[in-house]
């Protein structure tokens, strides 16, 4: 893409996210969300392939409808209470409409249908932006209104998201779709705790962004778009495949990796709120996700030497691995022992 155009779009993404995150008036929050939606469209449709165009169309339609619902909810609240403050969303119907609007923006079930197809149609780096940076403004809005939202609705959306994220990811062979369902599943964990302890939602989001950035960047450096490519990707960078195993298990939430921390704290908080059956259900539903993470790890690593293979490591390296992957991978594997310090940061 033209570098100046790319600069304009990336700068608009930063601008839109900053506007929404730092706003206290609903109109500014809506403006930021719209700028984000517009600016990411050319990044999704960069390759001009029909699948990419379809992904851009689907993204635009769902996000525009969700922004309209955000506007309706804020206007209903302004009509009934006379003010536009984001933290003062008191009218119950406004809270309901806002919850469904943010669920559409994030990709929570039952508004998740656009997410795998959009992620499949976009390049891996744009997919990374869609999964991490584009989730932050809607999550911020949910965070700011969390004290007035309906807990039952959010818990139902969360459990359905974890269930469908795990179940629908099982039959996938394309890595981008697997990562989309992984994202839906993690969003379920984020949504379940937001009315009880919103800081845990943010902690879960930050650690999820860290781990999924590692996975996306690893897959981008090995140009792995499907499982069969993942099987032979070790010949290009064997150590990267080995680290991918640990990162994927961290993403699945296995101790002693970082990914266990948010799940642990969320289960503890749910138990404190006298919701132990809910905590059990959501943990069991995460086991479905564990299966496809294990399948990815098997394809990446468990077929490595020393047992017999019919490939050897390639002698040439096209381009060295991005050092950022090393930093992100180290963080996403080893942050669990400093968990008390992490809690003081968020």
């Amino acid at each position, binding site marked *: 893409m033209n570098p100046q155009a790319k600069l304009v779009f990336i700068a608009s993404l930063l*601008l839109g996210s900053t506007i929404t995150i730092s706003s206290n008036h609903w*109109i500014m929050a809506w403006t930021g969300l719209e*700028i984000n939606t*517009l600016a990411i*469209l*050319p990044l999704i449709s960069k390759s*001009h392939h029909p699948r990419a165009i379809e992904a851009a169309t689907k993204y635009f339609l769902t996000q525009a409808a969700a922004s309209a619902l955000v506007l309706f909810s804020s206007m209903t609240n302004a009509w009934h209470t006379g003010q536009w403050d984001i933290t003062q969303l008191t009218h119950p119907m406004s809270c309901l409409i806002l919850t469904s609007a943010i669920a559409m923006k994030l990709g929570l079930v039952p508004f998740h249908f656009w997410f795998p197809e959009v992620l499949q149609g976009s390049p891996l780096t744009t997919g990374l932006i869609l999964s991490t940076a584009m989730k932050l403004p809607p999550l911020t809005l949910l965070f700011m209104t969390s004290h007035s939202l309906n807990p039952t609705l959010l818990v139902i959306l969360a459990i359905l998201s974890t269930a469908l994220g795990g179940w629908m990811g099982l039959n996938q062979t394309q890595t981008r779709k697997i990562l989309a369902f992984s994202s839906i599943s993690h969003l379920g964990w984020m949504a379940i705790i937001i009315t009880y302890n919103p800081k845990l939602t943010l902690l879960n989001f930050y650690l999820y962004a860290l781990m999924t950035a590692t996975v996306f960047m690893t897959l981008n450096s090995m140009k792995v778009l499907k499982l069969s490519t993942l099987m032979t990707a070790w010949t290009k960078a064997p150590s990267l495949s080995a680290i991918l195993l640990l990162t994927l298990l961290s993403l699945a939430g296995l101790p002693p990796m970082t990914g266990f921390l948010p799940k642990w704290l969320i289960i503890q908080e749910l138990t404190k709120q006298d919701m132990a059956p809910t905590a059990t259900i959501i943990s069991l539903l995460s086991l479905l996700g564990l299966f496809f993470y294990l399948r990815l790890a098997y394809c990446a690593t468990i077929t490595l030497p020393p047992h017999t293979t019919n490939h050897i490591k390639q002698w040439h390296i096209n381009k060295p691995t991005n050092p950022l992957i090393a930093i992100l991978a180290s963080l996403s594997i080893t942050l669990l022992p400093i968990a008390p310090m992490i809690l003081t940061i968020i």
Partner: protein
Amino acid sequence: MMEFVLFLGLCFVLGGLGVASNPSPYYGVMGLVVAAVAGCGWLVSLGVSFVSLVLVMVYLGGMLVVFVYSVSLAADPYPESWVDWGVVGYGFGMGLVVMVGLVVGGVLGMVMGEGVLGSEELLSVRLDFSGVAVFYSYGVGLLLIGGWGLLLTLFVVLELVRGLSRGAIRAV
């Protein structure tokens, strides 16, 4: 009065329906016109007539006109112009008919100034005028960000349709 406002609301929804269910963009634009006019009428019923006029001018008089011009240029890339003799003769004939109609209708006398209209009083502070003033003074941040959003829309559309047959709007 209430029924008329509700009728305007119905027209707005039907116009939106017309846009969404259009068989082609040429007919979809008709729905946009109906929806915009109904929206303007609703704004007038709320009392903010200035904003309603701004909406009509910018939406129907600006964006819709640009759309119609681009569509007609795409349909007829080499149109006839004024200097073609057939067009000049046509224009003269039409002008003659208009003049005869004005004189016969007595409108020309009215235009020449026979009566004096009573002065209309404007309210000293109107919400929509002062709202626009705030938009340029205290609310200049929203003006800049809104302007950037619109400019960004232009860039996005240009980037999406760039490339003719290799771009996004190709027949696949």
